[in-house]
């Protein structure tokens, strides 16, 4: 196991934080360039006219998901170290998700994209960021009274492949297939809602889709690698 590095250990902390700034810059730049600094474009997701949010998010998840399954499959990355920060608390995550979704369409931004909008000079984005701060402080005050709910449905580090009892690589391949079908479906919905006006998919889309299929197959191929000692998936 080589990765992840212990980037925030004491002796490397300054370097780790510098990397955090660089990673954040790339994150913010990409979000701006796909159009996530514009409230109307984000809101279009919820009226069916512009499903960019879904396409970008699901492509990003598929990309990172396949990267993780391949790198952990060949023994370069330690999956359990990556999972450490993501504990499932089912009920507050479901209720929090619904409330965040309502806040998303009311504000026109999610928390990350409101920062992108604020950085682009959009006052509505800046006001959303101010709201985020207020809301998080208010919740902190209420948290002692919500303790039972806040920790409800605790499942620890619990994954879709644990729940469905299928190998990680098999599930990532299945999700990739579902994603490709969903992308085609999303484009069809946009065409219907916008009255036939088609944004030509083009060669870039085909190249990305082919890349996903190739990576999903590479992920499946790692299943043939014999498991060595503690490198068990």
């Amino acid at each position, binding site marked *: 196991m080589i990765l992840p*590095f212990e*980037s925030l250990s004491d002796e490397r902390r300054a370097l780790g934080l*510098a*990397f*955090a700034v660089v990673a*954040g810059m790339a*994150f*913010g*730049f*990409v979000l*701006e360039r*796909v159009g996530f*600094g514009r409230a*109307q474009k984000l809101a279009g997701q919820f009226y069916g006219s512009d499903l960019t949010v879904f*396409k*970008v*998010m699901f*492509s*990003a998840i598929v990309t*990172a*998901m396949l*990267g993780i399954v391949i790198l952990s499959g060949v023994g370069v*990355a330690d999956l359990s170290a*990556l999972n450490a920060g*993501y*504990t*499932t608390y089912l009920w507050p*995550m479901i*209720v*929090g*998700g619904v*409330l*965040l*979704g309502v*806040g*998303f*369409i*009311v504000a*026109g*931004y*999610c*928390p*990350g994209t409101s920062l992108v*909008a604020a950085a*682009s*000079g*959009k006052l509505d984005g800046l006001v959303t960021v101010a*709201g*985020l*701060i207020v*809301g*998080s*402080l208010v919740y902190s005050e209420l*948290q002692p009274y919500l303790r039972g709910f806040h920790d409800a449905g605790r499942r620890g*580090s*619990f994954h879709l492949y644990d729940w469905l009892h299928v190998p990680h690589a098999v*599930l990532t391949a299945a*999700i990739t297939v579902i994603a490709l079908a969903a992308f085609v479906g999303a484009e069809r919905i946009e065409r219907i809602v916008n009255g036939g006006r088609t944004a030509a998919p*083009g060669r870039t889309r085909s190249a*990305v889709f082919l890349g996903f299929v190739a990576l999903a197959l590479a992920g499946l191929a790692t299943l043939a690698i014999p498991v060595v000692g503690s490198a068990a998936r």
Partner: protein
Amino acid sequence: MQRNPDRFWNPYLGGVALGLVLLVTFLVMGRGLGASGASFRLGAWIENAVAPAHVAKVPALASTLEDGSPLNDWIVFEVLGMVIGAALGAYTSGRLGREILRGPSFGAAPRLALALAGGILMGAAARMSRGCTSGQGLSGGALLSVGSWAFMLSVFAGGYGFAYLVRRQWR
């Protein structure tokens, strides 16, 4: 290069770029990207400057003082970079500029009121769900965490369920 504020990256290619940034962050930092954790810590920092005695009494706020300042956390540095990167993206694409984004027939004041209300709701919701669309949905989603997928499906359910009631602000 010509600046055209109406031109965006191909969503699939943009998604791949975002996914690669996320993957590299996972491999280098051992954790994924996030956003709402930083606004919470900024709030805790402000409140600690104004009313430190109260912050010490609220467990969720007091826990941000473990490393000295609430701002002494990697997510704050990541979001600092995010703001710089977004400003660079907006400047180079011609989208940098002060405006209030809304539908052509919707007023600026009600738009800002809704932006504030939505922000407050999301600020509380992101604490409840241990992260927002970035930290929980995207990062936990790529790890196939059950909680993250339940969260993301709920976000879309909440958004679609409420969209009709606020449709006027985009018209």
